[in-house]
């Protein structure tokens, strides 16, 4: 399963990179979304998969999955959400003010850089 996950994560990273290299601002943000999914799955996979019950003591299981990566991922999800939300509103305001979402046109012009 870990090998399959490694390839899935690779595909997520690949798509994310390709989107981030595009010139539409919205696609770049979609790319960052995919990138954070990839990173979260990578964290989980590296902690080892399916090593026991869910990390709830009420289960009374002989072994539990590692709770630490899950806590780390939970933190990461919330932070990436905060950043993505900020970024989206930034993009929204950019459309409003500048009227474009094309990164080539957002480069600044001569005398203004």
């Amino acid at each position, binding site marked *: 399963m870990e090998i399959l996950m490694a390839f899935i994560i690779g595909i997520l990273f690949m798509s994310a990179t390709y989107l981030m290299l595009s010139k539409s601002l919205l696609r770049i943000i979609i790319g960052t979304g*995919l990138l954070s999914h990839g990173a979260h799955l990578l964290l989980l996979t590296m902690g080892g998969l399916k090593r026991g019950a869910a990390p709830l003591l009420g289960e009374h299981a002989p072994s539990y999955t590692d709770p630490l990566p899950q806590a780390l*991922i939970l933190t990461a999800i919330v932070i990436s959400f905060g950043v993505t939300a900020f970024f989206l509103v930034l993009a929204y305001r950019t459309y409003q003010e500048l009227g474009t979402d094309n990164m080539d046109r957002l480069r600044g012009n001569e005398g203004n850089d």
Partner: protein
Amino acid sequence: MSLLHLAIISPFLLAILVPFAYKLFRQIHTGWFILPLPILLFSYFISYLSITSNQQSVTKSFSWIPTLGIDFTAKVDGLGLLFALLITGIGSLVVFYSIYYLDKNKEKLNTFYVYLLLFMGAMLGVVLSDNLLVLYTFWEFTSFSSFLLIGYWYHREKSRYGAQKSMIITVFGGLSMLAGIILLYIMTGTFSITEIIAQSDEIFANPLFVPALLCILLGAFTKSAQFPFHIWLPDAMEAPTPVSAYLHSATMVKAGIYLVARMSPVFAEHSLWLWLVAGFGIVTLFWGSFSAVKQTDLKSILAFSTVSQLGMIMSLLGIGAAALHFETVKDSYFTVATTAAVFHLINHATFKGSLFMVAGIVDHETGTRDIRKLGGLMNFMPITFTLAIIGTFAMAGLPPFNGFLSKEMFFTGMVRVLDMDIFNLDTWGILFPVIAWVASVFTFIYSMVLVFRTFTGKFQPEKLEKKPHEAPIGMLISPIVLASLVIIIGFFPNIISNTLISPAQAAIMPPAEGYLYDTHIYFWHGFTPELFMTLGVITLGILLFATLPKWRSVYGLFPKKLTLNRFYDGGLEIAQRGSMNFTKIYMNGSIRNYLIYIFTFFIVILGFALFAKDAFTFDASNISTIHFFEVLLALVIAVGSITILFAKSRLTSIILLGAVGYTVALFFVIFRAPDLALTQLVIETISVSLFLLCFYHLPKKRNEERMTFKMVNAVISVGVGAIVTLIALSAHSNKLFGSISQYYVENTYEKAAGKNMVNVILVDFRGFDTMFEIAVLGIAALGIFSMIKLRMGGGKKNENK
């Protein structure tokens, strides 16, 4: 802190008070407040003569940064004292001269004297420091104050150009010297010159010896305007004339000479030192005197003449080094060159200082320094003319002035080069006396040009801005003192031989135990080769001077494109334009470009680390099982994320992103992470709605289109994906030690009273993370709020539409 230290830093202290004196006593020329200090210092340093005459020295130490071995150690020996007397003596005369030269109503005297005092203190520090880092500090202070003084009339473009040029060249050399100092420290473990000299025999074989030698020499050559670094000196003539007289003839340009002399006991045993110092010196001597003849500006002639004379002193120091290289110092065969160097150093300071002051007087009283406009001033300025005759004849090396004596000794030194049996001297060594002789002929010619084109010939009153008349007496006193010194030393050279020259020589070439240098300078050597060389110089010089207009065109033959100044200016421009073009190429403002650099670097560095270092391992023993359902979910993620790339409409992309997010939540369910699944579901929902909000506000007019395929992007993204996969596989196969999670499993209930391990970790074991994560959310919320609410700059909305 001793009196000696106080003497060195007293100019700095006085510099603080200058602006007050200037503001409070506007009626009195500020220079009068400055004048007592150099005179006082001069008399103070005179008192050391009794010690150094016996070739002894005085050392006073003052702790500055003891942990780094940096102490402000002042050492007065023959060489240091000679320079200190030159600095304070000529300093007094220059300050006196400047009082009459600079107008107290037109010039900003406060800045002038502050800069001059800074320079004086820095120069005293250079020549009296025994600690190399302290010496370097003062050394850069001289570059810095010289920069300020050259740019004194900063509204003139040429002043700024000259100041910048001298700054770049001398600081370049200064930094190289710092490198040399550090290399010396690495070899010897001390910054003290005295201790380094004591270890000079051991470091001789050290591989860092030659680099240190080259670095130190580069510093000395740039400061002392040796070929090809002499180009800053003629441009430094934009400074006020007292500054040119003080810095650019008598003191600062001799800092390099001082450094070479001071470091001779360390390096002179190496033949490289001998050849570099002598070789660069002799080339500079020739080039300076050759170039001086074609100049038409009085100060330019003097500048090139300074370059040439500095080259002469430098070459003499180089040949004097042969004494340490070949033989014991007792034999005075080669040390005569060192004697000549020290002697000429004094002579040059006297006559060149007075000549600059004469040039300043001519400029001041006629309004021009161009010799094509000048002529026939003899009748108007008899005293200035006399001073000029004395100075130039001493410079040309004519009896009975002091220049004659040092030139004779110079020839002696050069002739003795022929006896060095190294480097196949049958062929190369002969170049030394020949070049020296030719250079002396040119020296003779420009000296004659200087005095006779200015003071004799046809008077051209229509070309002059003012009606010429004799300078005020105050302006004449300083050059008169210097010219008298020229004559006194010329007639009675031995009054300084054992008080000044021998002690200085003892510092440059430390003699064997118990040996004292005993210098005697004679007017009459008998019929030696030197005498005939001088006679030849005078004969040929007079002939060439008389026929100068006929052969002057020879200077036109030299192509203008090949001058060193063109190389310097071109080099600066190329560096500037090149770096600008380079920056424009890679900093083009496109985020995509920067991301490409970042991702490429990421791929290259990690790929290199994985494969070149053999870090990739693959081990399938420790993996968990796969179910059909999981493969299905994996396929959904893979297909979903790849389809986003080909989606035409952005709405499809957003929905596909949502699909990927929910699948990730399902993965969390499968991998037994209920809290994660919950959070992921909620957050994905909110994110997608935010994306839709964004989509809704897109500019409507543009048709939606697919991403255009770019090969570079594809290669880079496949590379990134592959690297991440490889690292994931490699990392998973390389578990070095187990997890620490057993502790959490055991203690979640025992110690923290909870059953949900993830939640207990979040709020109890690792609660700090959560606190700051809350802060992140709070900041994001505030940021979003202020972005939407705050509209600076009023109504200028959608300018680009």
